[in-house]
Protein backbone atom coordinates (compact mmCIF):
# COMPACT_ATOMS: atom_id res chain seq x y z
CA UNK A 1 0.00 0.00 0.00
CA UNK A 2 2.71 2.43 1.09
CA UNK A 3 4.70 1.60 -2.00
CA UNK A 4 1.69 2.33 -4.22
CA UNK A 5 1.13 5.68 -2.59
CA UNK A 6 4.77 6.53 -3.00
CA UNK A 7 4.73 5.53 -6.65
CA UNK A 8 1.68 7.65 -7.32
CA UNK A 9 3.15 10.57 -5.42
CA UNK A 10 6.44 10.46 -7.25
CA UNK A 11 4.62 10.16 -10.56
CA UNK A 12 2.56 13.22 -9.70
CA UNK A 13 5.69 15.04 -8.66
CA UNK A 14 7.32 14.20 -11.97
CA UNK A 15 4.33 15.48 -13.92
CA UNK A 16 4.18 18.73 -11.98
CA UNK A 17 7.92 19.31 -12.34
CA UNK A 18 7.84 18.75 -16.07
CA UNK A 19 4.71 20.89 -16.35
CA UNK A 20 6.50 23.70 -14.56
CA UNK A 21 9.55 23.29 -16.76
CA UNK A 22 7.49 23.31 -19.91
CA UNK A 23 6.00 26.78 -19.62
CA UNK A 24 8.38 28.54 -17.24
CA UNK A 25 11.35 30.42 -18.62
CA UNK A 26 14.48 30.19 -16.51
CA UNK A 27 16.42 33.39 -16.10
CA UNK A 28 19.88 33.50 -14.57
CA UNK A 29 22.06 36.28 -13.20
CA UNK A 30 25.81 36.50 -12.64
CA UNK A 31 26.71 38.94 -9.87
CA UNK A 32 30.16 40.35 -9.20
CA UNK A 33 29.47 40.98 -5.50
CA UNK A 34 26.96 39.88 -2.92
CA UNK A 35 23.35 41.17 -3.26
CA UNK A 36 23.86 42.63 0.22
CA UNK A 37 26.48 45.17 -0.89
CA UNK A 38 23.89 47.96 -0.95
CA UNK A 39 25.53 49.18 -4.12
CA UNK A 40 25.96 47.79 -7.63
CA UNK A 41 24.95 44.15 -7.11
CA UNK A 42 22.18 45.10 -4.70
CA UNK A 43 20.52 47.16 -7.43
CA UNK A 44 20.78 44.36 -9.98
CA UNK A 45 19.18 42.06 -7.45
CA UNK A 46 16.41 44.62 -6.90
CA UNK A 47 15.93 44.54 -10.67
CA UNK A 48 15.70 40.76 -10.58
CA UNK A 49 13.08 40.89 -7.82
CA UNK A 50 11.12 43.54 -9.75
CA UNK A 51 11.18 41.26 -12.80
CA UNK A 52 9.97 38.27 -10.75
CA UNK A 53 7.08 40.28 -9.36
CA UNK A 54 6.17 41.67 -12.77
CA UNK A 55 6.18 38.38 -14.64
CA UNK A 56 5.02 36.09 -11.87
CA UNK A 57 4.85 32.38 -12.65
CA UNK A 58 5.95 32.66 -16.26
CA UNK A 59 9.58 32.84 -15.15
CA UNK A 60 11.86 31.54 -12.44
CA UNK A 61 15.18 33.13 -11.57
CA UNK A 62 18.55 31.99 -10.26
CA UNK A 63 21.65 33.95 -9.45
CA UNK A 64 25.30 33.20 -8.74
CA UNK A 65 26.98 35.80 -6.55
CA UNK A 66 30.62 36.81 -6.00
CA UNK A 67 31.75 35.61 -9.42
CA UNK A 68 35.29 36.93 -10.12
CA UNK A 69 35.96 38.61 -13.46
CA UNK A 70 38.31 35.89 -14.70
CA UNK A 71 38.12 32.35 -16.07
CA UNK A 72 35.84 31.45 -13.15
CA UNK A 73 33.17 33.57 -14.79
CA UNK A 74 33.15 31.21 -17.78
CA UNK A 75 32.37 28.29 -15.51
CA UNK A 76 29.62 30.18 -13.71
CA UNK A 77 27.99 31.39 -16.95
CA UNK A 78 28.31 27.96 -18.54
CA UNK A 79 26.75 26.37 -15.48
CA UNK A 80 23.65 28.52 -15.94
CA UNK A 81 23.56 27.99 -19.70
CA UNK A 82 23.93 24.23 -19.37
CA UNK A 83 21.22 23.95 -16.72
CA UNK A 84 18.45 25.08 -19.03
CA UNK A 85 18.40 28.83 -18.54
CA UNK A 86 16.80 30.75 -21.38
CA UNK A 87 18.16 34.18 -20.59
CA UNK A 88 21.31 35.06 -18.67
CA UNK A 89 22.28 38.50 -17.41
CA UNK A 90 26.00 39.00 -16.77
CA UNK A 91 26.17 42.13 -14.69
CA UNK A 92 29.71 43.46 -14.85
CA UNK A 93 31.93 44.97 -17.54
CA UNK A 94 34.75 42.44 -17.35
CA UNK A 95 32.45 39.47 -17.98
CA UNK A 96 32.47 40.60 -21.61
CA UNK A 97 34.72 38.02 -23.27
CA UNK A 98 33.56 35.26 -20.94
CA UNK A 99 29.94 35.95 -21.90
CA UNK A 100 30.80 35.77 -25.61
CA UNK A 101 32.75 32.56 -25.11
CA UNK A 102 29.79 30.79 -23.53
CA UNK A 103 27.32 32.40 -25.94
CA UNK A 104 29.15 30.75 -28.85
CA UNK A 105 28.67 27.34 -27.24
CA UNK A 106 24.96 27.90 -26.53
CA UNK A 107 23.42 29.65 -29.55
CA UNK A 108 19.88 29.00 -28.28
CA UNK A 109 20.43 30.73 -24.96
CA UNK A 110 20.02 34.51 -24.85
CA UNK A 111 22.61 36.62 -23.06
CA UNK A 112 22.49 40.17 -21.76
CA UNK A 113 25.81 41.73 -20.84
CA UNK A 114 25.81 44.87 -18.69
CA UNK A 115 27.99 47.87 -19.62
CA UNK A 116 29.83 46.04 -22.41
CA UNK A 117 30.13 46.79 -26.11
CA UNK A 118 30.56 43.39 -27.83
CA UNK A 119 27.39 41.83 -29.21
CA UNK A 120 26.41 38.64 -31.04
CA UNK A 121 23.15 37.25 -32.41
CA UNK A 122 22.34 35.93 -28.96
CA UNK A 123 24.17 38.56 -26.92
CA UNK A 124 22.67 41.97 -26.16
CA UNK A 125 24.38 44.72 -24.25
CA UNK A 126 22.75 47.21 -21.96
CA UNK A 127 23.92 49.99 -19.77
CA UNK A 128 22.68 53.06 -18.02
CA UNK A 129 23.86 56.59 -18.67
CA UNK A 130 25.18 56.95 -15.14
CA UNK A 131 27.26 59.88 -16.35
CA UNK A 132 24.08 61.96 -16.48
CA UNK A 133 23.90 61.52 -12.72
CA UNK A 134 27.60 62.33 -12.42
CA UNK A 135 26.87 65.66 -14.09
CA UNK A 136 24.32 66.44 -11.40
CA UNK A 137 26.60 65.52 -8.52
CA UNK A 138 29.48 67.38 -10.18
CA UNK A 139 27.35 70.51 -10.26
CA UNK A 140 26.39 70.08 -6.60
CA UNK A 141 30.00 69.36 -5.59
CA UNK A 142 31.29 72.41 -7.45
CA UNK A 143 28.86 74.59 -5.53
CA UNK A 144 29.20 72.93 -2.15
CA UNK A 145 32.97 72.54 -1.79
CA UNK A 146 34.72 75.03 0.46
CA UNK A 147 38.26 73.73 0.06
CA UNK A 148 37.82 73.41 -3.73
CA UNK A 149 39.20 69.89 -3.35
CA UNK A 150 37.07 66.87 -4.13
CA UNK A 151 38.16 63.32 -3.39
CA UNK A 152 37.17 60.72 -5.96
CA UNK A 153 37.59 56.97 -5.25
CA UNK A 154 37.52 54.72 -8.28
CA UNK A 155 37.80 51.04 -9.08
CA UNK A 156 39.27 50.16 -12.48
CA UNK A 157 40.31 52.34 -15.43
CA UNK A 158 37.48 51.38 -17.82
CA UNK A 159 35.48 53.76 -20.06
CA UNK A 160 32.46 53.65 -17.74
CA UNK A 161 34.48 54.97 -14.80
CA UNK A 162 36.53 57.51 -16.78
CA UNK A 163 33.38 58.87 -18.42
CA UNK A 164 31.98 59.38 -14.94
CA UNK A 165 35.07 61.29 -13.78
CA UNK A 166 34.96 63.52 -16.86
CA UNK A 167 31.24 64.23 -16.62
CA UNK A 168 31.66 65.04 -12.94
CA UNK A 169 34.63 67.33 -13.51
CA UNK A 170 33.08 69.16 -16.48
CA UNK A 171 30.00 70.02 -14.44
CA UNK A 172 31.96 70.91 -11.30
CA UNK A 173 34.48 73.14 -13.08
CA UNK A 174 31.70 74.88 -14.97
CA UNK A 175 30.27 76.33 -11.76
CA UNK A 176 33.59 76.50 -9.91
CA UNK A 177 36.69 76.96 -12.10
CA UNK A 178 39.03 76.54 -9.10
CA UNK A 179 37.83 73.04 -8.29
CA UNK A 180 40.44 70.25 -8.16
CA UNK A 181 39.73 66.55 -8.01
CA UNK A 182 42.05 64.08 -6.35
CA UNK A 183 41.64 60.57 -7.69
CA UNK A 184 42.56 57.27 -6.00
CA UNK A 185 42.41 54.05 -8.01
CA UNK A 186 41.64 51.11 -5.72
CA UNK A 187 41.79 48.35 -8.30
CA UNK A 188 38.87 46.58 -6.69
CA UNK A 189 35.12 47.11 -6.87
CA UNK A 190 34.57 45.94 -3.39
CA UNK A 191 36.85 46.18 -0.36
CA UNK A 192 35.18 48.20 2.41
CA UNK A 193 38.41 48.58 4.39
CA UNK A 194 40.39 49.89 1.45
CA UNK A 195 37.58 52.18 0.37
CA UNK A 196 37.52 53.65 3.89
CA UNK A 197 41.33 54.09 3.77
CA UNK A 198 41.06 55.88 0.44
CA UNK A 199 38.32 58.18 1.73
CA UNK A 200 40.31 59.00 4.86
CA UNK A 201 43.43 59.65 2.78
CA UNK A 202 41.53 62.07 0.55
CA UNK A 203 39.93 63.83 3.50
CA UNK A 204 43.36 64.08 5.12
CA UNK A 205 44.60 65.77 1.94
CA UNK A 206 41.96 68.43 2.19
CA UNK A 207 38.99 67.00 0.30
CA UNK A 208 35.69 68.13 1.78
CA UNK A 209 33.51 66.09 -0.58
CA UNK A 210 33.93 62.37 -1.25
CA UNK A 211 32.74 60.83 -4.50
CA UNK A 212 33.02 57.12 -5.18
CA UNK A 213 32.81 54.71 -8.04
CA UNK A 214 33.25 51.59 -5.92
CA UNK A 215 30.54 49.39 -4.48
CA UNK A 216 30.42 49.58 -0.68
CA UNK A 217 29.15 52.37 1.52
CA UNK A 218 32.41 52.58 3.48
CA UNK A 219 33.54 55.89 1.83
CA UNK A 220 30.27 57.58 2.74
CA UNK A 221 30.61 56.25 6.29
CA UNK A 222 34.19 57.54 6.52
CA UNK A 223 32.97 60.94 5.32
CA UNK A 224 30.25 60.92 7.96
CA UNK A 225 32.80 60.19 10.67
CA UNK A 226 35.14 62.93 9.48
CA UNK A 227 32.30 65.43 9.12
CA UNK A 228 32.63 66.02 5.37
CA UNK A 229 30.08 65.59 2.58
CA UNK A 230 29.66 62.63 0.25
CA UNK A 231 27.60 61.12 -2.54
CA UNK A 232 26.36 57.53 -2.37
CA UNK A 233 26.86 54.95 -5.06
CA UNK A 234 24.31 52.96 -7.09
CA UNK A 235 21.62 52.94 -4.39
CA UNK A 236 20.28 55.32 -1.77
CA UNK A 237 22.79 55.08 1.07
CA UNK A 238 21.42 57.83 3.26
CA UNK A 239 20.66 55.40 6.11
CA UNK A 240 24.38 54.75 6.59
CA UNK A 241 25.58 58.33 6.53
CA UNK A 242 22.60 60.66 7.18
CA UNK A 243 24.79 63.71 7.89
CA UNK A 244 27.02 63.46 4.84
CA UNK A 245 24.94 61.82 2.10
CA UNK A 246 23.79 64.60 -0.26
CA UNK A 247 22.28 62.33 -2.90
CA UNK A 248 23.16 59.23 -4.86
CA UNK A 249 22.94 58.03 -8.45
CA UNK A 250 20.57 55.07 -8.46
CA UNK A 251 20.60 52.34 -11.07
CA UNK A 252 17.06 51.21 -11.86
CA UNK A 253 17.27 47.93 -13.75
CA UNK A 254 13.85 46.41 -12.97
CA UNK A 255 11.75 47.68 -15.92
CA UNK A 256 14.47 46.75 -18.42
CA UNK A 257 14.87 43.27 -16.94
CA UNK A 258 11.12 42.73 -16.96
CA UNK A 259 10.87 43.88 -20.61
CA UNK A 260 13.67 41.57 -21.76
CA UNK A 261 12.29 38.61 -19.82
CA UNK A 262 8.87 39.27 -21.34
CA UNK A 263 10.48 39.29 -24.77
CA UNK A 264 11.97 35.87 -24.10
CA UNK A 265 8.61 34.56 -22.87
CA UNK A 266 6.93 35.95 -26.01
CA UNK A 267 9.72 34.75 -28.29
CA UNK A 268 10.42 38.26 -29.56
CA UNK A 269 13.88 38.74 -28.04
CA UNK A 270 16.48 40.20 -30.38
CA UNK A 271 20.08 41.22 -29.91
CA UNK A 272 20.39 44.96 -29.40
CA UNK A 273 22.28 47.65 -27.58
CA UNK A 274 20.40 49.59 -24.94
CA UNK A 275 21.77 52.70 -23.27
CA UNK A 276 19.25 54.61 -21.20
CA UNK A 277 19.41 57.42 -18.72
CA UNK A 278 17.14 59.82 -16.84
CA UNK A 279 14.69 59.92 -19.73
CA UNK A 280 13.79 56.25 -19.60
CA UNK A 281 14.15 56.00 -15.84
CA UNK A 282 17.17 53.72 -15.83
CA UNK A 283 19.08 56.32 -13.82
CA UNK A 284 17.49 58.25 -10.97
CA UNK A 285 18.76 60.57 -8.29
CA UNK A 286 18.07 59.63 -4.66
CA UNK A 287 16.09 62.25 -2.72
CA UNK A 288 18.28 65.32 -2.24
CA UNK A 289 19.25 65.75 1.40
CA UNK A 290 17.44 68.88 2.52
CA UNK A 291 19.44 69.05 5.75
CA UNK A 292 22.69 69.49 3.82
CA UNK A 293 21.79 71.17 0.55
CA UNK A 294 20.40 74.70 0.20
CA UNK A 295 17.06 74.85 -1.58
CA UNK A 296 18.41 76.74 -4.61
CA UNK A 297 21.00 74.02 -5.29
CA UNK A 298 18.35 71.32 -5.05
CA UNK A 299 16.22 73.26 -7.53
CA UNK A 300 19.18 73.68 -9.89
CA UNK A 301 19.86 69.97 -9.70
CA UNK A 302 16.25 69.14 -10.44
CA UNK A 303 16.20 71.55 -13.37
CA UNK A 304 19.32 69.92 -14.73
CA UNK A 305 17.66 66.52 -14.49
CA UNK A 306 14.74 67.83 -16.53
CA UNK A 307 17.06 69.52 -19.02
CA UNK A 308 19.01 66.30 -19.55
CA UNK A 309 15.72 64.40 -19.98
CA UNK A 310 14.54 66.94 -22.57
CA UNK A 311 17.86 66.91 -24.34
CA UNK A 312 18.43 70.64 -23.80
CA UNK A 313 21.45 69.84 -21.66
CA UNK A 314 24.09 67.23 -22.51
CA UNK A 315 26.80 66.23 -20.02
CA UNK A 316 29.42 66.38 -22.78
CA UNK A 317 28.78 69.66 -24.58
CA UNK A 318 31.60 71.18 -26.60
CA UNK A 319 34.04 72.70 -26.50
CA UNK A 320 35.81 69.89 -24.65
CA UNK A 321 39.59 69.57 -24.65
CA UNK A 322 41.66 66.61 -23.59
CA UNK A 323 44.65 66.92 -21.26
CA UNK A 324 46.98 67.58 -24.18
CA UNK A 325 44.85 70.59 -25.06
CA UNK A 326 43.41 69.07 -28.25
CA UNK A 327 39.82 69.87 -29.06
CA UNK A 328 37.87 66.62 -28.89
CA UNK A 329 34.32 67.94 -29.01
CA UNK A 330 33.72 71.09 -31.05
CA UNK A 331 31.72 74.05 -29.82
CA UNK A 332 28.02 73.54 -30.40
CA UNK A 333 28.39 69.77 -30.67
CA UNK A 334 28.02 66.99 -28.12
CA UNK A 335 30.11 63.84 -27.70
CA UNK A 336 28.56 60.96 -29.64
CA UNK A 337 27.85 57.57 -28.09
CA UNK A 338 30.86 56.03 -29.82
CA UNK A 339 33.23 58.45 -28.15
CA UNK A 340 31.47 58.06 -24.81
CA UNK A 341 31.55 54.27 -24.98
CA UNK A 342 35.29 54.14 -25.53
CA UNK A 343 36.34 57.16 -23.48
CA UNK A 344 39.79 56.49 -22.07
CA UNK A 345 41.16 60.02 -21.64
CA UNK A 346 40.76 62.75 -19.03
CA UNK A 347 39.42 66.12 -20.03
CA UNK A 348 41.55 69.20 -19.59
CA UNK A 349 41.88 70.35 -16.01
CA UNK A 350 42.07 66.94 -14.35
CA UNK A 351 45.49 66.25 -12.83
CA UNK A 352 47.28 62.96 -13.28
CA UNK A 353 47.11 60.42 -16.05
CA UNK A 354 44.67 57.64 -16.84
CA UNK A 355 46.35 54.41 -15.66
CA UNK A 356 47.03 51.97 -18.45
Amino acid sequence: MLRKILTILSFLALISVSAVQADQKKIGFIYIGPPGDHGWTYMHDQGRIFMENALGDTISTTYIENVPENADAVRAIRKLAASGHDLIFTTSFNYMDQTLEVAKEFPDVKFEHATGFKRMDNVSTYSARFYEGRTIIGHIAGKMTKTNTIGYIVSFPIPEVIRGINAFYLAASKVNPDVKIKIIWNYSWYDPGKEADAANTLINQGADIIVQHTDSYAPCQAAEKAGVLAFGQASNQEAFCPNSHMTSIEDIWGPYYAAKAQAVVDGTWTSEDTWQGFKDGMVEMSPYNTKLLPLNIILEAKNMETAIENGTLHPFEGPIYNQAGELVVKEGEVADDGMLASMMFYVQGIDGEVPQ
Partner: protein
Amino acid sequence: MSIELIIGILNIVLISTTPLVFAGIGELVTEKSGVLNLGLEGLMLVGAVTGFITLVLTGNYFYSLFLSIISGVILSGIFAFLVLNLMTNQIATGLALTIFGIGLSAMLGKKFGGTPIDGLNPYYFIVISFLLVFFVAYFLSKTKTGLIVRAVGENHNSAYALGYNVIKTRYLTIIFGGVMSSLAGYYISICYAPMWQEGMTAGRGWIALALVVFATWKPWRLLVGAYIFGGVAIMQMNLQAIGVKLPGQFFNMMPYLATIIVLVFISSNKLRLKLSAPSSLNIPFEKNQ
Protein backbone atom coordinates in the same frame (compact mmCIF):
# COMPACT_ATOMS: atom_id res chain seq x y z
CA MET B 1 54.20 68.23 3.80
CA SER B 2 52.66 69.66 6.90
CA ILE B 3 52.77 67.96 10.29
CA GLU B 4 48.99 67.54 10.24
CA LEU B 5 49.11 65.69 6.95
CA ILE B 6 51.79 63.32 8.25
CA ILE B 7 49.88 62.67 11.48
CA GLY B 8 46.80 62.00 9.38
CA ILE B 9 48.67 59.50 7.23
CA LEU B 10 50.10 57.71 10.29
CA ASN B 11 46.61 57.58 11.72
CA ILE B 12 45.23 55.86 8.62
CA VAL B 13 48.19 53.46 8.52
CA LEU B 14 47.58 52.48 12.16
CA ILE B 15 43.87 51.91 11.55
CA SER B 16 44.33 49.87 8.40
CA THR B 17 47.25 47.71 9.55
CA THR B 18 45.88 46.50 12.89
CA PRO B 19 43.81 43.57 11.53
CA LEU B 20 46.97 42.21 9.87
CA VAL B 21 48.82 42.38 13.20
CA PHE B 22 46.08 40.49 15.04
CA ALA B 23 45.63 37.72 12.48
CA GLY B 24 49.38 37.51 11.82
CA ILE B 25 50.47 37.23 15.45
CA GLY B 26 47.89 34.51 16.10
CA GLU B 27 49.00 32.51 13.09
CA LEU B 28 52.63 32.99 14.11
CA VAL B 29 52.02 31.26 17.45
CA THR B 30 50.05 28.48 15.74
CA GLU B 31 52.82 27.91 13.23
CA LYS B 32 55.50 28.07 15.93
CA SER B 33 53.90 24.96 17.42
CA GLY B 34 54.09 23.22 14.04
CA VAL B 35 50.55 23.66 12.72
CA LEU B 36 49.73 25.52 9.52
CA ASN B 37 46.22 27.00 9.65
CA LEU B 38 45.14 28.33 6.25
CA GLY B 39 41.67 29.09 7.60
CA LEU B 40 42.40 32.68 8.70
CA GLU B 41 40.14 34.32 6.14
CA GLY B 42 37.21 32.13 7.17
CA LEU B 43 37.85 32.65 10.87
CA MET B 44 38.06 36.41 10.36
CA LEU B 45 34.78 36.53 8.46
CA VAL B 46 32.92 34.47 11.04
CA GLY B 47 34.42 36.58 13.83
CA ALA B 48 33.33 39.72 11.98
CA VAL B 49 29.78 38.58 11.37
CA THR B 50 29.27 37.12 14.85
CA GLY B 51 30.40 40.36 16.47
CA PHE B 52 28.27 42.42 14.13
CA ILE B 53 25.08 40.40 14.61
CA THR B 54 25.48 40.35 18.38
CA LEU B 55 26.00 44.09 18.42
CA VAL B 56 22.90 44.68 16.32
CA LEU B 57 20.77 42.38 18.49
CA THR B 58 22.01 43.37 21.94
CA GLY B 59 23.61 46.77 21.39
CA ASN B 60 26.34 45.68 23.80
CA TYR B 61 29.99 45.88 22.70
CA PHE B 62 31.15 43.51 25.42
CA TYR B 63 28.74 40.72 24.42
CA SER B 64 29.58 41.16 20.76
CA LEU B 65 33.32 40.96 21.45
CA PHE B 66 32.79 37.94 23.67
CA LEU B 67 30.70 36.01 21.14
CA SER B 68 33.11 36.91 18.37
CA ILE B 69 35.92 35.35 20.43
CA ILE B 70 33.74 32.30 21.15
CA SER B 71 33.18 31.85 17.42
CA GLY B 72 36.96 31.74 16.96
CA VAL B 73 37.33 29.19 19.78
CA ILE B 74 34.66 26.92 18.29
CA LEU B 75 35.84 27.06 14.67
CA SER B 76 39.53 26.71 15.46
CA GLY B 77 38.62 23.99 17.98
CA ILE B 78 36.98 22.04 15.16
CA PHE B 79 40.06 22.61 13.01
CA ALA B 80 42.30 21.43 15.86
CA PHE B 81 40.21 18.29 16.41
CA LEU B 82 40.40 17.45 12.71
CA VAL B 83 44.12 17.95 12.23
CA LEU B 84 45.31 16.78 15.66
CA ASN B 85 43.00 13.90 16.55
CA LEU B 86 41.85 12.73 13.16
CA MET B 87 45.15 13.75 11.57
CA THR B 88 43.63 15.22 8.45
CA ASN B 89 45.87 17.11 6.05
CA GLN B 90 46.47 20.57 7.51
CA ILE B 91 46.49 22.41 4.19
CA ALA B 92 43.28 20.85 2.94
CA THR B 93 41.54 21.29 6.30
CA GLY B 94 42.64 24.91 6.51
CA LEU B 95 41.37 25.66 3.02
CA ALA B 96 38.12 23.91 3.88
CA LEU B 97 37.85 26.10 6.98
CA THR B 98 38.26 29.22 4.85
CA ILE B 99 35.62 28.12 2.37
CA PHE B 100 33.32 27.08 5.21
CA GLY B 101 33.85 30.39 6.99
CA ILE B 102 33.07 32.42 3.87
CA GLY B 103 29.84 30.51 3.35
CA LEU B 104 28.80 30.42 6.98
CA SER B 105 29.40 34.14 7.50
CA ALA B 106 27.44 34.98 4.35
CA MET B 107 24.54 32.83 5.53
CA LEU B 108 24.51 34.20 9.08
CA GLY B 109 24.80 37.79 7.93
CA LYS B 110 22.16 37.67 5.20
CA LYS B 111 19.53 39.61 7.15
CA PHE B 112 21.97 42.05 8.74
CA GLY B 113 23.68 43.41 5.65
CA GLY B 114 22.23 46.89 5.59
CA THR B 115 21.99 47.60 9.30
CA PRO B 116 23.79 50.78 10.36
CA ILE B 117 25.74 50.53 13.63
CA ASP B 118 27.88 52.85 15.73
CA GLY B 119 31.49 51.88 15.28
CA LEU B 120 33.89 51.39 18.16
CA ASN B 121 37.01 53.53 18.59
CA PRO B 122 39.82 51.63 16.84
CA TYR B 123 42.48 52.93 19.24
CA TYR B 124 41.68 50.38 21.95
CA PHE B 125 42.52 47.64 19.50
CA ILE B 126 45.57 49.39 18.11
CA VAL B 127 47.06 49.64 21.61
CA ILE B 128 46.15 46.02 22.35
CA SER B 129 47.80 44.87 19.11
CA PHE B 130 51.14 46.40 20.13
CA LEU B 131 50.89 44.92 23.63
CA LEU B 132 50.04 41.59 22.09
CA VAL B 133 53.15 41.51 19.94
CA PHE B 134 55.23 42.39 22.99
CA PHE B 135 53.53 39.67 24.99
CA VAL B 136 53.98 37.00 22.29
CA ALA B 137 57.64 37.93 21.76
CA TYR B 138 58.26 37.67 25.50
CA PHE B 139 56.21 34.48 25.78
CA LEU B 140 58.02 32.65 23.00
CA SER B 141 61.54 33.62 23.99
CA LYS B 142 61.49 34.08 27.74
CA THR B 143 58.91 31.79 29.29
CA LYS B 144 59.08 28.06 29.84
CA THR B 145 55.70 27.47 28.23
CA GLY B 146 56.82 29.47 25.22
CA LEU B 147 59.89 27.30 24.86
CA ILE B 148 57.69 24.20 25.06
CA VAL B 149 55.57 25.59 22.21
CA ARG B 150 58.70 26.09 20.13
CA ALA B 151 60.07 22.66 21.04
CA VAL B 152 56.81 21.08 19.91
CA GLY B 153 57.02 22.99 16.67
CA GLU B 154 60.66 22.14 16.02
CA ASN B 155 60.51 18.43 16.74
CA HIS B 156 57.31 17.01 18.14
CA ASN B 157 58.77 13.53 18.69
CA SER B 158 61.57 14.82 20.88
CA ALA B 159 59.18 17.08 22.74
CA TYR B 160 56.89 14.13 23.31
CA ALA B 161 59.80 11.96 24.48
CA LEU B 162 60.68 14.68 26.99
CA GLY B 163 57.21 14.36 28.41
CA TYR B 164 55.48 17.37 26.88
CA ASN B 165 51.91 17.04 25.76
CA VAL B 166 52.16 17.79 22.05
CA ILE B 167 48.45 17.54 21.31
CA LYS B 168 47.41 19.77 24.20
CA THR B 169 50.03 22.38 23.33
CA ARG B 170 48.86 22.48 19.73
CA TYR B 171 45.21 22.68 20.75
CA LEU B 172 46.01 25.77 22.75
CA THR B 173 48.10 27.47 20.05
CA ILE B 174 45.50 26.74 17.37
CA ILE B 175 42.74 28.18 19.53
CA PHE B 176 44.90 31.22 20.32
CA GLY B 177 45.39 31.73 16.59
CA GLY B 178 41.67 31.30 16.00
CA VAL B 179 40.75 33.86 18.64
CA MET B 180 43.24 36.37 17.21
CA SER B 181 41.71 35.92 13.75
CA SER B 182 38.22 36.49 15.15
CA LEU B 183 39.49 39.64 16.83
CA ALA B 184 40.90 40.79 13.50
CA GLY B 185 37.49 40.17 11.94
CA TYR B 186 35.69 41.86 14.82
CA TYR B 187 37.95 44.88 14.42
CA ILE B 188 37.14 45.07 10.71
CA SER B 189 33.35 44.93 11.05
CA ILE B 190 33.07 47.02 14.24
CA CYS B 191 35.92 49.57 14.09
CA TYR B 192 37.60 49.73 10.69
CA ALA B 193 34.56 49.80 8.41
CA PRO B 194 31.58 49.51 10.78
CA MET B 195 29.24 47.41 8.66
CA TRP B 196 28.63 43.86 7.63
CA GLN B 197 29.04 42.95 3.99
CA GLU B 198 29.81 39.51 2.66
CA GLY B 199 33.49 38.82 2.12
CA MET B 200 34.38 42.19 3.62
CA THR B 201 37.80 41.04 4.86
CA ALA B 202 38.75 41.01 1.15
CA GLY B 203 41.80 38.74 1.37
CA ARG B 204 43.39 40.14 4.54
CA GLY B 205 43.59 36.61 5.96
CA TRP B 206 45.86 35.61 3.11
CA ILE B 207 48.04 38.67 3.55
CA ALA B 208 48.37 37.81 7.26
CA LEU B 209 49.50 34.32 6.28
CA ALA B 210 52.06 35.75 3.89
CA LEU B 211 53.15 38.11 6.63
CA VAL B 212 54.15 35.27 8.96
CA VAL B 213 56.54 33.91 6.32
CA PHE B 214 57.73 37.43 5.49
CA ALA B 215 58.54 37.90 9.18
CA THR B 216 60.39 34.55 9.25
CA TRP B 217 58.29 33.57 12.28
CA LYS B 218 59.57 36.39 14.51
CA PRO B 219 57.00 38.53 16.37
CA TRP B 220 58.75 41.90 16.12
CA ARG B 221 59.51 41.39 12.46
CA LEU B 222 55.85 40.56 11.98
CA LEU B 223 54.90 43.91 13.46
CA VAL B 224 57.42 45.70 11.25
CA GLY B 225 56.32 43.69 8.20
CA ALA B 226 52.65 44.46 8.83
CA TYR B 227 53.42 48.17 9.00
CA ILE B 228 55.52 47.96 5.85
CA PHE B 229 52.61 46.31 4.00
CA GLY B 230 50.04 48.68 5.47
CA GLY B 231 52.28 51.74 5.12
CA VAL B 232 53.08 51.09 1.46
CA ALA B 233 49.38 50.65 0.66
CA ILE B 234 48.47 53.97 2.29
CA MET B 235 51.49 55.80 0.87
CA GLN B 236 50.60 54.80 -2.66
CA MET B 237 47.08 56.16 -2.07
CA ASN B 238 48.57 59.44 -0.88
CA LEU B 239 50.87 59.68 -3.87
CA GLN B 240 47.98 58.94 -6.21
CA ALA B 241 45.88 61.65 -4.59
CA ILE B 242 48.75 64.11 -5.00
CA GLY B 243 48.81 63.16 -8.67
CA VAL B 244 51.83 60.86 -8.98
CA LYS B 245 51.23 58.11 -11.50
CA LEU B 246 51.68 54.68 -9.96
CA PRO B 247 51.01 51.12 -11.05
CA GLY B 248 48.22 50.39 -8.55
CA GLN B 249 47.93 46.72 -9.46
CA PHE B 250 51.57 46.31 -8.54
CA PHE B 251 50.92 47.58 -5.04
CA ASN B 252 48.01 45.18 -4.65
CA MET B 253 50.28 42.19 -5.24
CA MET B 254 53.25 43.60 -3.33
CA PRO B 255 52.65 41.71 -0.05
CA TYR B 256 52.66 38.40 -1.90
CA LEU B 257 55.65 39.34 -4.04
CA ALA B 258 57.64 40.41 -0.97
CA THR B 259 56.77 37.09 0.68
CA ILE B 260 57.96 35.09 -2.31
CA ILE B 261 61.23 37.02 -2.28
CA VAL B 262 61.71 36.28 1.42
CA LEU B 263 60.89 32.61 0.79
CA VAL B 264 63.44 32.42 -2.00
CA PHE B 265 65.98 34.11 0.23
CA ILE B 266 65.52 31.84 3.24
CA SER B 267 65.23 28.70 1.10
CA SER B 268 68.48 29.37 -0.72
CA ASN B 269 70.43 28.29 2.33
CA LYS B 270 69.57 25.17 4.33
CA LEU B 271 70.86 26.61 7.59
CA ARG B 272 68.88 29.80 7.13
CA LEU B 273 65.76 27.79 6.42
CA LYS B 274 66.38 25.72 9.53
CA LEU B 275 66.79 28.81 11.67
CA SER B 276 63.57 30.32 10.40
CA ALA B 277 60.75 27.88 9.77
CA PRO B 278 59.58 25.56 12.56
CA SER B 279 60.87 22.15 11.45
CA SER B 280 57.70 20.25 12.26
CA LEU B 281 55.46 22.74 10.45
CA ASN B 282 52.66 20.98 8.63
CA ILE B 283 53.80 17.50 9.77
CA PRO B 284 51.12 15.50 11.59
CA PHE B 285 52.05 14.08 14.98
CA GLU B 286 51.37 10.41 15.66
CA LYS B 287 51.70 9.37 19.26
CA ASN B 288 52.52 5.72 18.71
CA GLN B 289 55.57 6.09 16.58
